[in-house]
């Protein structure tokens, strides 16, 4: 029993938690921006997948993984831009368009993988991002074990989350985004360009999700495989809701999800006498329990999922 507890609460588990939380937290903040502006974003999944693919493609053709990261951000933004045109300009049902985007991205990345590299399952190996440590944090006890020798995207993620929180709650643009998601007609009558705010927020969500995707493909595996996002976009959406549409809350929820996932991996590795399938259920079961038992009732932006047009 002690072995089990030790496995669960070891530094290694926590370090794994931070690693696994990185793409989810990035996409969750993407979801936060999109939904704060009023657009439900089921399409995070497809944006992550696009980012993962574009990252590998960029690294493959230039040999430079940082160009790959740039590609991931650009193409993540690009598919998000398509999503924004459909949901904002053409007033598509957000959920349905999101599902469509995910299927589109899955088909497109798998197809392109075959067109470019032949194989259907995985891409060739490419140059991934190096592991780095931050000089000062290196010396701090405990912290050094947790976040040294991680992918640079882990540190970038922490910085972006703080920056995103600042943007959303401390700047004029953040106020405009929040107002648009709560009451677009109020924003409009104040002379705020509602569509532009929504475009900005949705495209930002694509950039962040694309970066999350780059972390998946260039951060530890250094290749792309079919359907690589494997449901992380949906987890990110759930994390955003748990986190009360706040980047910091989203990060906390991502930690919760990935902690249970890290525990599950650790338990598998120490060969307990429990079937794998049961251990694998843990993160999903915890999500359901937390969601159903949540003491804080979530309060989404009031105009979430609605379309805005004055003449309809």
């Amino acid at each position, binding site marked *: 029993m002690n072995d089990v507890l030790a496995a669960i609460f070891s530094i290694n588990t926590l370090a794994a938690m931070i690693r696994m939380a990185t793409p989810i937290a990035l996409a969750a903040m993407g979801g936060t921006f999109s939904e704060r502006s009023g657009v439900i974003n089921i399409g995070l999944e497809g944006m992550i997948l696009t980012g993962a693919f574009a990252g590998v493609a960029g690294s493959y053709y230039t040999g430079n993984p940082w160009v790959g990261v740039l590609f991931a951000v650009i193409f993540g933004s690009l598919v998000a831009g398509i999503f924004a045109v459909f949901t904002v300009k053409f007033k598509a049902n957000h959920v349905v368009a999101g599902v469509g985007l995910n299927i589109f991205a899955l088909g497109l990345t798998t197809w392109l993988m075959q067109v470019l590299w032949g194989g259907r399952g995985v891409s060739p190996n490419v140059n991934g991002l190096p592991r780095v440590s931050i000089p000062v944090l290196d010396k701090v006890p405990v912290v050094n074990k947790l976040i040294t020798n991680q992918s640079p995207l882990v540190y970038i993620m922490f910085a972006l989350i703080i920056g995103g929180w600042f943007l959303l709650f401390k700047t004029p643009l953040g*106020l405009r985004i929040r*107002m648009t998601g*709560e009451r677009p007609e109020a924003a*409009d*009558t*104040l*002379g*705020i360009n509602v569509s532009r705010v929504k475009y900005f927020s949705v495209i930002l969500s694509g950039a962040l999700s694309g970066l999350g995707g780059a972390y998946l493909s260039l951060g530890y595996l250094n290749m792309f495989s079919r359907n690589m996002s494997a449901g992380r976009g949906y987890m990110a959406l759930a994390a955003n809701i748990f986190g009360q549409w706040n980047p910091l809350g989203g990060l906390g929820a991502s930690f919760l999800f990935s902690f249970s996932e890290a525990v599950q991996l650790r338990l598998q590795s120490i060969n307990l006498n429990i079937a794998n399938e049961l251990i694998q259920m843990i993160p999903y079961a915890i999500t359901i329990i937390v969601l159903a038992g949540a003491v804080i009732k979530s309060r989404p932006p009031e105009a979430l999922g609605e379309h805005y047009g004055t*003449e309809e």
Partner: protein
Amino acid sequence: MYAVDMKGITKTFGDTVANDGVDLSVEEEEIHCILGENGAGKTTLMNVLFGLYERDAGEIFLHDKEVNIRKPSQAIDHGIGMIHQNFMLVNRLSVTDNIVAGAEPKKGIRLDRKKAVKDVRRLSEKYGLKVDPEARIENISVGDQQRVEILKALYRKADILILDEPTAVLTPQEVEDLFRIMRELKESGKTLIFITHKLKETMTITDRITILRDGKKVGTVETGDTNPRDLAQMMVGRDVVLSVEKSEREERPVAFEVKDLNVHNPTNNLYLRDVSFEIEEGEVLGVAGVEGNGQLELEEGLMGLRPTESGEVILRGSDLRELTTRERKKIGIAHIPSDRLRRGLIAEFNLQRNMILGSEWDRPFSRRGFLDRNRIKEYTEEVIEDFDIRGGTADVDAKSLSGGNQQKVILGRELTRDPELIIAAQPTRGVDVGAIEYIHGELLNMRDRGVPVLLISAELDELRSLSDRIIVLYEGEIVASLDADAVDERELGLLMAGEEVEG
């Protein structure tokens, strides 16, 4: 020179012509009224001026210069501010956030919140519009919210202010306060456009009046040269009977009784406390009060749409408090809900399907769970005929009807079930004069047949002309119970504002 000169404004929505070549000339530093019924095109005209709607035809001049306003931001740049009937405020944000958004003071890349709060405070002191800049919108009163709306326009340096039905949600005293503010604004050099359908207010506050009817301009008159009767005639296009005749009644047995009812609404933290009243057979009991003082909680508590904490609700001897909404409807409570579109109708359903809402499991419309579609259609056609529902057959969707006809659909559905009790909440809100007369007539008709009626309304005239007795709700409690014939408006207004009245 005119502050605002609109010429030949036309605006259509699909087949409906909302504004048909309307002219409007507003002089500088005057209070100009736009008077008309619901649906006459007043708000549409102002939304065109404010850039929320794009006009199909016409020209707009401000201070003799032609302007091309296509977006609210352009209207704001031209010094126009609009106070909307449904406040354009975000409940979860602070007063300051609501005022400065879109024109925020900055310090580097941050929003300079300190300066924002200071600016708002200075502005509110300058114009005598008292509000707490740090409070959240959802925690302040409706009157305060309206002040925030006015401050929003002043913060943007508006010199032409449009006020769309600003008095609809206020107590008589708050209305007086608003009028004081409007006069002060006029004296400080602002031009005000005041939209209303209330004749008395028009006569009190305005300099000139432009009357609209069916999307067309009827005329512009000097307030000093006209009177309410002429205005009503221009507004409706025929002579209007401004009061209803109500038959005398004698004392009869009590049919409906509420004892010590307690309801708590967690969203606005309002408690309905120990509410007790009785309604006799054939009696109309009016419930007066400023909106948000427990009317909705009372209405929904009585229908089982909201849990009640304690008390008794007794209809002809039996307690209803444990019954579900469906069971209450079945024993004969007719309910005209305050929020017609949210509660009373399913906009995407056709009239047939709307007509069986609440009795879709009952004979004759359903047998063992299978719908009798022929019977439903016949019934719908009967109601359309009997209740004079215009603009639709049994197959059209409810959303395609006008507000007045939608209300008649609800009235028809509820009153044809032989009710034992009628709960009518805001039955004539947003309804044109013809339909108002009709609805009042139907309610009095039911009263004369001995049905007890609970009438919840924000319209004092409606309460006084239909009710036999009136109770006043203030912050969830009944603060007065009055004989409808003996009550005067001023007294009622004070009671609604929570003041003590000598009596």
